[in-house]
């Protein structure tokens, strides 16, 4: 138990301290940013040392770098850092206490056991070539790597609630930044209402202890979406926001196999801006392609084998293709990419529903049962989101609300399409089955925080709800 307290505290404090050194000073952002920095460090160190068969060193180096970051920050004893460290440490202690002292654990699920098996392989520095199949690639890279940092032969149980804590802190950061000009009373009231509507359902609570990469993906997507909306509102991408977007895209792209697609949809609005620097586009897209390619290369993935390319050539091509959005002669497409993507996704979904009507009928029924009749353990969360979006400000949308709105619609369509593609590997496309463990049903865990923020911003910005004539910016 003490080992786990020490390990998670080091991850929490080290990550937050390094985030501080890199210019991330906001209290609420420091927690998810620190976590994502830990993800990047762990992934890159493991992948690099794996190339020279020194995987056993990766955990030592990881902890060494975190400790160094902490010591340097403590030495500087920067003003304000203490608060950030206190938040991270408190979250880490609560997380480990909940699993190791109180004994709370997530619901049992086959995917969780696969992920724990991979964590076990990393823990004992086993042969990574066992992970070259379909199963491994579906279970992610970053999350099992973090889980493997537990005591010998045990998993790091506290990391899962800690990730959920980081998601909550991320929501607070995004909301506080996007509603900075709004009356605090409105934000507080809508926040309380949405909390009641959300945590009266099972799935968001299940995410706290459920062993799977969904919540880590959610952290990456939320931070990338929030920072993108802030940048679009301000017509400026600050260094801090660019950095956290890159961290978010990397984290999402290495946590779940569909993560890079969802991350791309989240940053599409930002990338389509005329004022964004080309170097920023390269950094953002490169974070996703680099993360995915080191994951595939480390796992000896069948995807690379299918191309008959050496891993470094595959990596170079993938990263190279990711640079295309920054090319000047593709600007005509980039400036309209959001509209193009939304129309294309809508056409794919509608087309698939028409062409594969019979194959998708069962999945459609399952989707309704899961989201409307409670089988997916989401209660009628969908009603909360739809109602919230409709009652929120719909005319003369502010840039940040419009961005979040587009991201929400994109994530819904993107999740449906990725599920169809996943099901399509085994024949006709499917939209899943009835029950909480259906993969599409669990996929909503990755985006529900963004949906909530979109609803909250819309409700807060609709002056008519608050008895005031609409005269705010539009």
């Amino acid at each position: 138990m003490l080992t786990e307290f020490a390990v998670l505290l080091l991850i929490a404090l080290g990550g937050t301290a390094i985030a501080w050194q890199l210019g991330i000073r906001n209290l609420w952002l420091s927690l998810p940013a620190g976590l994502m920095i830990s993800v990047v460090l762990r992934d890159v160190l493991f992948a690099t040392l794996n190339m020279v068969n020194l995987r056993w060193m990766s955990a030592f180096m990881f902890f060494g770098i975190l400790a160094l970051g902490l010591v340097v920050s403590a030495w500087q004893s920067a003003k304000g850092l203490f608060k950030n460290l206190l938040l991270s440490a408190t979250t880490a202690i609560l997380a480990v206490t909940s699993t190791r002292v109180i004994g709370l654990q997530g619901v049992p699920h086959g995917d969780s056991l696969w992920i724990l098996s991979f964590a076990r392989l990393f823990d004992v520095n086993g042969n990574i070539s066992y992970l070259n199949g379909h199963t491994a690639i579906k279970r992610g890279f970053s999350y099992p790597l973090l889980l493997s940092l537990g005591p010998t032969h045990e998993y790091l149980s506290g990391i899962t609630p800690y990730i959920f804590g980081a998601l909550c802190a991320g929501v607070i950061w995004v909301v506080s930044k996007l509603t900075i000009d709004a009356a605090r009373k409105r934000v507080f009231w809508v926040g309380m209402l949405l909390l009641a509507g959300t945590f009266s359902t099972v799935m968001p609570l299940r995410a706290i202890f459920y062993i799977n990469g969904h919540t880590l993906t959610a952290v990456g997507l939320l931070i990338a979406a929030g920072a993108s909306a802030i940048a679009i509102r301000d017509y400026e991408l600050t260094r801090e926001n660019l950095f956290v977007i890159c961290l978010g895209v990397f984290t999402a792209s290495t946590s779940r196999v569909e993560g890079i697609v969802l991350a791309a949809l989240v940053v599409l609005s930002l990338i389509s801006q005329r004022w964004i620097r080309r170097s920023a586009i390269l950094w953002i897209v490169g974070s996703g392609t680099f993360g995915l390619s080191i994951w595939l290369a480390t796992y000896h993935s069948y995807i690379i084998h299918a191309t008959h390319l050496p891993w470094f050539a595959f990596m170079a091509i993938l990263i190279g293709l990711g640079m295309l959005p920054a090319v000047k002669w593709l600007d005509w497409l980039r400036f309209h990419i959001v509209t193009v993507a939304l129309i294309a996704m809508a056409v794919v979904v509608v087309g698939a529903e028409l062409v594969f009507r019979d194959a998708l009928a069962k999945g459609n029924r399952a989707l309704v049962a899961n989201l409307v009749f409670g089988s997916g353990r989401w209660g009628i969360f969908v009603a909360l989101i739809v109602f919230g979006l409709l009652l929120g400000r719909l005319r003369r949308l502010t840039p940040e609300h419009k961005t979040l709105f587009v991201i929400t619609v994109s994530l819904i369509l993107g999740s449906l399409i990725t599920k169809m593609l996943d099901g399509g590997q085994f024949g006709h496309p499917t939209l899943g089955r009835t029950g909480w463990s259906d993969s599409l049903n669990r996929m909503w865990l990755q985006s529900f925080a963004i949906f909530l923020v979109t609803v909250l911003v819309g409700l807060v910005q609709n002056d008519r709800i608050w008895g005031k004539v609409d005269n705010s910016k539009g």
Partner: protein
Amino acid sequence: MNTLKSWRFWVLNVVVFGIAFANLFVLSHSQPFFGHNKTFSVNRIIEHSTWVEGAPVVLTNHFSQVDVNHIGDRFKNGFGFESELVGIFKVHSVDRSKDPIDVRSKISLKQLEHYRHYVTTTHCSGGTSKYCNLVLIWDVRNSAPYRTFMGLLSDDSVLPDSGGKKVKTFVLLDSNLFRTLIGDPSAY
């Protein structure tokens, strides 16, 4: 500005509380998580969960070296024994070239009951279900840390209350016990 005079404000509150009420008291829900957990060892968690893929993990939990044969092809006459887990949990060798030995006419599952150690399910095909029963059997009185397990087809019966569903039961039987109860393993 008077928020309390805005009908939209009241609609928002009433609808959200209605949704929360429905979530809590109308729609079915289940436990979001469980308590009193004391197991954090990955191997033990898998053994306790009777996972459909768990057989390789359970065997390596109990023996230093495990060899397995007569697994067959899970998409034909054999049953699932996941190769990733075989590698991760270091099963010494797995021979899938031969189908499970059909012992239905030689020995019943009831006769093996005494030695039964672990009952789970596994992936299979050919029947009316994609899942089959899998029973792991060895003799605890034998303390040898190195074991060879043989795949057997032991039963192919209609499940009670399943609407006529036929489910196969496979056994992974310790070769020492096979010799005692059925005959010379090398003859198969």
